[in-house]
């Protein structure tokens, strides 16, 4: 992923519908060490063909939800990022 400033490599996990669309359960990508959640989501959607479900995705950074898309996220090398479609547990 191209961006200005320092870049770190993180693990990206896909589940359910997003896993099927991305055609992989996990991947490693370079992301800016500092990025707004909505921009990050846009980049992931473009790169992994998730456009059909992009309005229903929520991200989790190191196993915590990023509930607000305007939040700024700080990444470190090796962090875990999960692309989470609407839940259906229970």
């Amino acid at each position: 992923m191209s961006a200005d400033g320092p870049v770190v490599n993180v693990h990206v996990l896909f589940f359910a519908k997003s896993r099927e669309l991305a055609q992989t359960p996990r991947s490693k990508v370079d992301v800016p060490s500092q990025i707004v959640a909505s921009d990050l989501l846009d980049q992931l959607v473009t790169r992994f063909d998730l456009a059909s479900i992009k309005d229903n995705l929520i991200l989790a950074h190191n196993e915590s939800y990023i509930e607000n898309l305007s939040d700024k996220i700080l990444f470190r090398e090796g962090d875990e990022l999960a692309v989470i479609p609407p839940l259906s547990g229970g």
Partner: protein
Amino acid sequence: MDHVKLVGDPIDISHIHELLLDDGCGASSVFVGTTRDNFQGKKVVSLAYEAYDNMAIKEMNKICSDLRSKWPGLKHIVIHHRLGTVPVREASVVIAASSPHRSEALESVSFAIDQLKTRVPIWKKEIYEGDHEAEWKENKESIRAKQSLSSFNYSACPCQVEESHEVPQKLVQIRVNDAELSKRLECFVNRKRDEINSQNIIDFKHPPADSVPELSDSCARTQSTVIKQEKSNCHIKVRRVNNRSFPQQMELRPNYELELNKLMGSRDGQNEPSVKMRKSLYDSRLLTIESYMGLAPKSEDDIFSRIKTLEDRILLLESISPEYKHFTNIEPSSLEPPAPKKTRKKSYSAHELGMLIEKIKNE
């Protein structure tokens, strides 16, 4: 104790009941979620569950601690969720709690299943009989990302601004970012507030009246003065200031409504205003201006002398309040008489004077 688990095998309800047992508990509540065999007329064969294991365990533990802070009497909490393929009629999730009294156990279990459906990252796919394609389900309670208004992408909407470099000199142009601009605005507002506050203190809180002459330029309607009275510790005396020429003295303003009604009434039944009517029209308008300016015309004054009085009044006001003069867009330089030409008298030395006198004598 909290029992949180993701399991691959069928859930044994009697085992869960054992986990709940406690000598001090009079109630245990168990919720069992099972798979349905139909969805929108399609026959469901089985359900496939998958989870983000580590985060699911984390979120389930979070639910346990939430329950304990809401219902401190809870003894044991069990949250087991099955993963992988679950045939119809089998349990996919079991949530159970035990407590000394029933209300805590019942309420907490109901709360916990709602939370699980909202927050725990587990997904199920329904597999249907026949040719129907399998479908990922969505809980209506599922967590969603908040779309903040500020996340609007301004760069997606380019805005063409025609930039002119000819900026009027009295305007100040500042190019800064939003944060700096709002900081400056805040400072400006604060400074104005302070100015008004200090002015109010000057207006309303005079030192004892006998030490200072009356302030004629104050906007204050009333002024309080603290005057120490005989046989009294302290007494507040309120002094009323009558600002005759200030607009906030509403009762001194012309009664526009009355004037307007008069005009409307006199127009009824008369299309062409008579000469007398016209006279009374400008008369009343002149009267309005005069009363606003605080002038009282004598009855024998004709129109020109009244206008002259008004002009004099304006000149007076301009001279005592020159700060308002710049609102009239008149170039002050054009009003000033041209500077007189400087003529320098020629000076003569004693010798030159002597020559001059000699010359005159000879003529």
